[in-house]
């Protein structure tokens, strides 16, 4: 049965991929990319990688679709027909693909229990997590504690991306409340947006602080948090949303998240441990781990939410100021 679901999902992924390549309307391609992400998320659920599925659904199907739509709105929704023949790219792609497939032949079989990763790393993590960290979600313990350096790097990458967008696009605060003239008439949308905004934010907080026990964590929570405000901006206009979260606050928050993360690491050093060693944070090593994970997830969530909003506002506010 599981194989059947796998095959159906992979088949749909392939069809979507071909459609994305064939279509020239970028609006349709954006929608298909969103579907592609949703299918991938379903595939991750089948593979029992619920944390990754949540990330893929929130980021791939959710916020990146919005960002791509914002980009299309200020450029064009038609892909140019290339003038050169597609022969050379085809040869390059086929050669690279063949080389990659050849490279995977030496890798252990899919689902092989004797694969090195299952015998050494995964076994160690599964064995040590209940003893050392005491959180039921091993993914969180690996991501936030054992691999804390990597995650600090990822948050820094996101922060840098936010700075890059800011440097390239700038940030235009709109005094007057600009929004497409028609959207004011859609009362239903505004009412539902008002009704669901608190629920979305509450759900984001649940994802953030429940990450130790269930699927979730700072990355997903940050994105969901940002989506709530983007929904507000869509329904009530950009000016109102920017008054709700001013530019300075966003800039500060984006930096504050990374700083919280790094500060937790340095606090560990001050208390006599190593950088990002959480067990010295409290008297009891397990409590210290809990505290450390909670704090760095908070930092990740704050930075991700702020950077997503910076990118969104950067794209959308530029669109409106372009014609002035």
């Amino acid at each position: 049965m599981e194989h059947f679901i796998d095959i159906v999902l992979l088949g749909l992924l392939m069809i979507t991929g071909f459609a994305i390549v064939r279509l020239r309307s970028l609006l349709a391609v954006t929608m298909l990319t969103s579907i592609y992400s949703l299918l991938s998320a379903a595939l991750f659920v089948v593979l029992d990688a619920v944390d990754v599925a949540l990330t893929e659904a929130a980021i791939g199907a959710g916020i990146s679709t919005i960002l791509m739509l914002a980009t299309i709105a200020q450029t064009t929704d038609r892909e140019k027909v290339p003038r050169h023949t597609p022969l050379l790219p085809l040869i390059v792609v086929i050669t690279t693909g063949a080389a990659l497939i050849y490279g995977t032949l030496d890798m252990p079989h899919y689902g092989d229990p004797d694969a090195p990763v299952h015998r050494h790393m995964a076994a160690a993590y599964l064995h040590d997590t209940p003893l050392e960290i005491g959180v039921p979600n091993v993914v969180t313990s690996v991501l936030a504690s054992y691999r804390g350096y990597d995650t600090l790097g990822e948050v820094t990458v996101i922060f840098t991306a936010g700075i890059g967008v800011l440097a390239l696009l700038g940030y235009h605060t709109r005094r007057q409340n600009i929004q497409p003239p028609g959207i004011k008439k859609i009362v239903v949308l505004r009412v539902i947006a008002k009704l669901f905004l608190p629920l979305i934010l509450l759900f984001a907080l649940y994802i953030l602080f429940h990450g130790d026990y269930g699927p979730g964590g700072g990355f997903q929570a940050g994105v969901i948090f940002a989506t709530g405000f983007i929904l507000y901006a869509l329904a009530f206009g950009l000016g109102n949303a920017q008054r709700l979260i001013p530019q300075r606050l966003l800039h500060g928050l984006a930096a504050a998240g990374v700083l919280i993360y790094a500060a937790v690491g340095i606090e560990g050093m001050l208390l006599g441990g190593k950088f990002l060693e959480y067990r010295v944070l409290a008297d009891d090593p397990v409590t210290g781990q809990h505290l450390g994970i909670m704090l760095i997830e908070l930092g990740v969530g704050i930075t991700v939410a702020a950077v997503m909003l910076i990118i969104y506002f950067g794209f959308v506010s530029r669109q409106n100021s372009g014609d002035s």
Partner: protein
Amino acid sequence: MMALALDLLSWIFLLAGAAFLLIGAIGVLRFPDFYTRLHAVSVCDTMGAGLVLIGLMLQGGLSLVTVKLLLIFYFMMFTCPTAVHALAQAALQGKLKPVVDDRES
């Protein structure tokens, strides 16, 4: 006996939901213009997904899973019609004319 009846009821809901979703998909393919297609999606998706969720709730029994499914159900009942409504409004304001069959008038 009770379990069997519950299982049966749940499967009736699941299959009915799947049938609704299938009808919706056929409608999207077969209907002539944007608005009628939207109609097919909206009615059948809300109904189909709702029935599937009810079927799954019966499978879940009295547990946390059912509560979560109930929340998803509640969420979908609000968001699906809203999304379709907004889409139709946007299409109307984008000056998309519905296809009208004027032979009968």
